[in-house]
């Protein structure tokens, strides 16, 4: 007999469901994701630090746990909410179902709640904190209300600098890890880059010491303003005019370093279907996103920054080109713009910036 489990939201709403995976009590920010696949990748998505994703698609775990897609990475989300989890997954790479995996990795799961009702609550009231527990006596409304995701970057960045080699490397990249995805590093290697991955707290001189052709700032979770040290580093790096590519939190911090501000979105963008428009060409791309904050473009000096992409649903900023330095940044996964034969103009742009730097 599976145990009853509960989600208690910050606003007092209680959802009664069942427990799966590990049993326990977890307080976190509850965020919803509308993608229909990708629950395995989400487990290692550092943006989920301090958060519990709830998936809108009701059948989670259909293809079980695929170790290859976890890539040996740390499990990030605090807990996990699914309407139904699948005890008989099917996929040629599947090794186990999500329940046993969650138990083994101490991930608290809640299922058999009406996730659609929960998502509508989050949509209408904004992202909220919540507690998942099997024990109602542990409910602490004050603790739920006071919860904040803290030191997110510090907790997901690499502890030590390391190098991802590349055969016949054409470029050397310094990557400031704010919670980078392994796949991004592999993509850069694929473009002929030797990638030096730095902890988020690395000072500018250490980064410059490897004499990089380009800088990538990528990740991650939490509130942008929690990272004043990284913003300072970016400010120090700016005068060096090294080609710079900011992604996700990196996009937000680059904006802060250039005098901009970020604001919280009502319920974030999390899913695989977010349309972004290239403001120059008018082309629209469907992107994967996972973020709760957005850069306020009006806070940036128009003479040094130009909005390059906007979200066609809510008009928020999805990318910035910097006019005074060779830098640009994106809020979404660049895979959105990938074309036939794996050509991606966004990565190519960064590569050609580095080529320009070399030729100059």
């Amino acid at each position, binding site marked *: 007999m599976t145990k009853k489990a509960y989600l208690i939201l910050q606003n007092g709403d209680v959802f009664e469901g069942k427990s799966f995976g590990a049993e326990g009590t977890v307080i976190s920010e509850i965020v919803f994701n509308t993608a229909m696949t990708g629950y395995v990748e989400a487990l290692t998505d550092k943006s989920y630090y301090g958060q519990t994703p709830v998936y809108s698609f009701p059948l989670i775990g259909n293809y079980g746990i695929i170790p290859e897609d976890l890539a040996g990475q740390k499990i990030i989300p605090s807990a996990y909410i699914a309407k139904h989890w699948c005890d008989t997954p*099917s996929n040629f790479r599947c090794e186990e179902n999500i329940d046993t995996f969650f138990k083994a990795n101490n991930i608290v799961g809640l299922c058999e709640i009406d996730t659609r009702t929960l998502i509508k609550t989050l949509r209408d009231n904004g992202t909220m904190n919540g507690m998942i527990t099997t024990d109602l006596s542990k409910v602490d409304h004050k603790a739920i209300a006071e919860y904040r995701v803290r030191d997110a970057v510090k907790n997901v960045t690499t502890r030590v600098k390391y190098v991802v080699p590349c055969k016949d490397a054409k470029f050397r990249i310094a990557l400031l890890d704010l919670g980078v995805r392994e796949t991004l590093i592999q993509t850069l290697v694929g473009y002929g880059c030797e990638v030096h991955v730095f902890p988020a707290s690395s000072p500018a001189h250490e980064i410059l010491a490897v004499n990089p052709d380009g800088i990538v700032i990528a990740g991650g979770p939490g509130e942008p303003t929690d990272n004043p040290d990284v913003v300072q580093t970016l400010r120090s790096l700016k005068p060096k005019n090294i080609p710079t590519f900011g992604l996700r939190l990196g996009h937000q911090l680059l904006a802060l370093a250039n005098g901009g501000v970020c604001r919280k979105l009502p319920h974030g963008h999390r899913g695989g279907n977010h349309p972004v428009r290239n403001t120059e060409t008018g082309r629209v791309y469907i992107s994967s996103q996972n973020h709760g904050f957005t850069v306020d473009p009006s806070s940036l000096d128009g003479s040094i920054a130009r909005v390059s992409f906007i979200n066609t649903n809510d008009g928020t900023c999805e990318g910035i080109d910097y006019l005074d330095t060779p830098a640009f940044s994106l809020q979404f996964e660049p895979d959105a713009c990938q074309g036939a034969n794996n050509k991606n103009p966004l990565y190519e742009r960064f590569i050609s910036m580095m080529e320009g730097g070399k030729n100059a």
Partner: protein
Amino acid sequence: MPKYESVKKVLVIGSGPIVIGQAAEFDYAGTQALRALREDGLEVVLVNSNPATIMTDQAMADRIYIEPLTLTTVRRIIEIERPDSILSGLGGQTGLNLCMQLAKEGYLEKMGVRLLGASPETIDKAEDRQSFKDTMKSIGQPCIPSKVVEDIDSALEFADEIGLPVIIRPAFTLGGSGGGIAYTRDELYEISREGLDASPIRQILVEKCISGWKEIEFEAMRDRAGNAITICSMENLDPVGVHTGDSIVVAPAVTLSDKEFQMLRRAALNIVEALGVEGGCNCQFALHPESFEYAVIEVNPRVSRSSALASKATGYPIAKVATKVAIGYTLDEIPNAVTGKTFAAFEPTIDYVAVKFPKWPFEKFVYAKRELGTQMKATGEVMTIADSFEMAIMKAVRGAEISLSTLRMPKLEYLSTEDIRTKLSACTDERLFVVYEALYRGISIEEIHNITMIDEWFLSKLLNLINYERSISGKMLTEEEYIKGKQLGYTDSSLYQLSENPIRYFRAPTYKMVDTCAAEFSAETPYFYATYDDGDNEAAPFTDEMKKPRMLVLGSGPIRIGQGIEFDYASVHCVWSLQRMGYEVIIINNNPETVSTDFDTADRLYFEPLTPEDVLNIIKQEKPEGVIVAFGGQTAIKLTSFLDKNGVKIIGSSADSIDMAEDRERFDALLESLNIKRPKGRTVLDCDGALTAAKNLGYPVLMRPSYVLGGQNMIIAYSDNDIREYMSIILATKNDNPVLIDKYLSGTEIEVDAICDGVDILIPGIMEHVERTGVHSGDSIAIYPAQSLTPELTERVIEITRLLSIGLNARGLVNIQYIIMDGEVYVIEVNPRASRTVPYISKVTGIPMCELAVRASLGEKLSDLGYKYGLHPSANTVAVKVPVFSFEKLTNVDTQLGPEMKSTGEVLGVGETVREAIFKGLVAAGYTMDVSGGVFITVRDQDKDEIAPIAKKYSDLGFKLYATAGTAKLLKEAGLEVSVVDKIHQNPDNNTKTLLDSGLVHYVISTSATGRDPAMDDVKIRRRASARRIPCLTALDTANAVADALASNFSEESVALYDIHEIS
């Protein structure tokens, strides 16, 4: 204003008659397209030969030609109308082929007509096998090893190179018509030849067989700026090998990990980019179940059956958006009407699963080969939505109207486990149920997977249902068990049957929304499905406040032979009429191909099965003033007594009226009291009773089960043997309903649709059938107005119609079929509901029959609505409805027409005279109207008196006559020159079959006393004719009418063309 400013007047080509592989989905798509064009202020001209459609309604376009979809006719319409543009992607394969041919021959350019939507280059890249392969190669998309060949030898040679089995796919055909899988060289030879014949350009693709791979589809959309999205992924439960139209399909794909999903999604986007698609596009992939290897199977750069499904599964209006894209809009400029907040440039995401289940015609065609393969055989489909696969498949099966309420098929329970195991390898329409039975018997998932290649995920879900059924068997359910059962999709009555205990609980469903975005944005025009979770009931905010009086309309479910698109036409018109009368209207239907399930047709749509519990739950949620059953065919009618017993108010003819028309004893009593004649008849329960009854009545007799639909299982018996064969088939179905035997009267068949307001009736028009009684009315050529009725008989028909309508206490539509014989009028049957001919007669008389019927049902009087009682004055033109069949898709089905309906669709022919109308109707139905070559004749004894004059007509036209010995003797006696042909078994080298293969014969006239059994020579001849696409006339009246049409000197160039606005 369209984005392309030069576009002012657009010609839209529809898809023509409903055939297997091209059905109601194109009425849905076409209707959306017409509205999208007119929304932009464009002048729209429509051509479509199918009168049963909503798109051909007067209000849908500025000019409407219900005319043949041939190159000549379309050219003539372009010359009359001078449109500046033509829309290619909305009329199915038929529309696409026509546009492409007009473009290729330079005609469009010459006439200054711009092709909107898919360009000829795009169409070629997708449809021409070789350029498709080249295109895929250029963007690194893998294809299955294959080769385009134009002769049999090359096919054999290539198969030697890649190894058997191989799949044969003919180029440019509907639903893979004429293709198949060849496991041996002999099969390859045979299928190649059929495929070459089926292809209009004599081209086939020989392809490595990858049966057993997963079949995954993506619907994509791209605009002129290159913005591209995928709308929906779909996974076929049946792996590659079964046509997707015959597969159980789930949206979204459920067994793909994110890697595989993104890989195929990206492939679909790259494909639409490479093809330069502007509009919707369907991409089919085969994915190896144990690796990342995949191949692109097929790409259709147009809206399709799959796009209709994807539309309904997600809420994204693909046809509308494709149309807007075709006139120059980019996706980010087109609003998403469901959310009202976002734009078409996004990918829908869903928080449920949708399951499509096909509807096959095999219950009508007992001898049809039920094996499924690359040739689509389903006539229709249902779709259901739920938050689990289990519940969705349960709803789909009970909504498919195949007499099942769970997945356990009673007839399989009697088979041994070994038989079940054997049956697993046969892929038929019943495979899901065989698999279920196999799981029930304890055959392992692994073993079933190895045999069927159905993914273990699906098998595990089926096992969940079985485990639940086992767990409650013979048990009083706890509340928890009851709710679990509801969540798995069981109805209360199924739970009662399974548990064999009374159900002590009741749980009402919570309705959830289809909103395209998984609740990320609030929705303005959502539709609903039932779940049994304990969250929000999202219908409540809409239903709680009664802003207007409310009515609920029942739709007609899946398209099947006998209950087709006509009933969707009627349901939709019922909805619109009620809305005009100020009602808030709710519709329930589960057919994703239809206009009735479009998100903005009714005020609210429930995508739910039309079964008692599901319907009653919705009624309880909505609390309508009344429920309208009269427009949804037998599907809705059969719910009447259940609803009536549950205190639901039925608007229109009451449950009692319907019962009086259907119950033989009550109906006979009514006829007697009114002094109206009908053929004498008996009711029997077994074979002996049937034989005795037939003896008393005298052969021939008409036999049918009571409570029939579309003449299902109806035959004319000429002998005791016929009765024995028939009764053995009927009794085997274990159906307890009695069998009706009537004296068969061979006379002129007359059909009337009337509207009764309780005081009197209005008859918009009387139809006369070309074929005498004995051919089902749905398969007959029906002429309006009736040509041979004397004024006295006309009066008598009007009078009987009035007496019966009033006598049955009917309100609204009444359909009556009559036989005229020896100056007497006999009644065959009366249906107090909308019939198949309502759209046809509405269009040719201009009388809004559905609206009048709705108003009459709600108490308005026809006289107050500006109509005179009695027969409406006839139009100046003559119209005919000509049936269209899908025989080439249904192996082993006898094509001889009889009392059992066989046609899948219909076309209209309009002319000044009967001959002109019939000529046009035949052209529209696909007859080439050749007036040279040969006619092969073989008729049964009872037709021999009449055949000679008909044969003479063909002979006089210059046809060479061929006949079998008996028929030839007669024709010679009549002074005709005729070549005798041996029967198949008489001479292996030179016989009726080789004659048909020789190409010398252009028409076949074949009737036989009995039929059906595919082993019979006559049936073989008719099948051969169908395979060779030779028109085969199986009723002498049809043969005579065709001869007269051929002799009429009309040509496609000379016949008049009518805008439907002008004829009525």
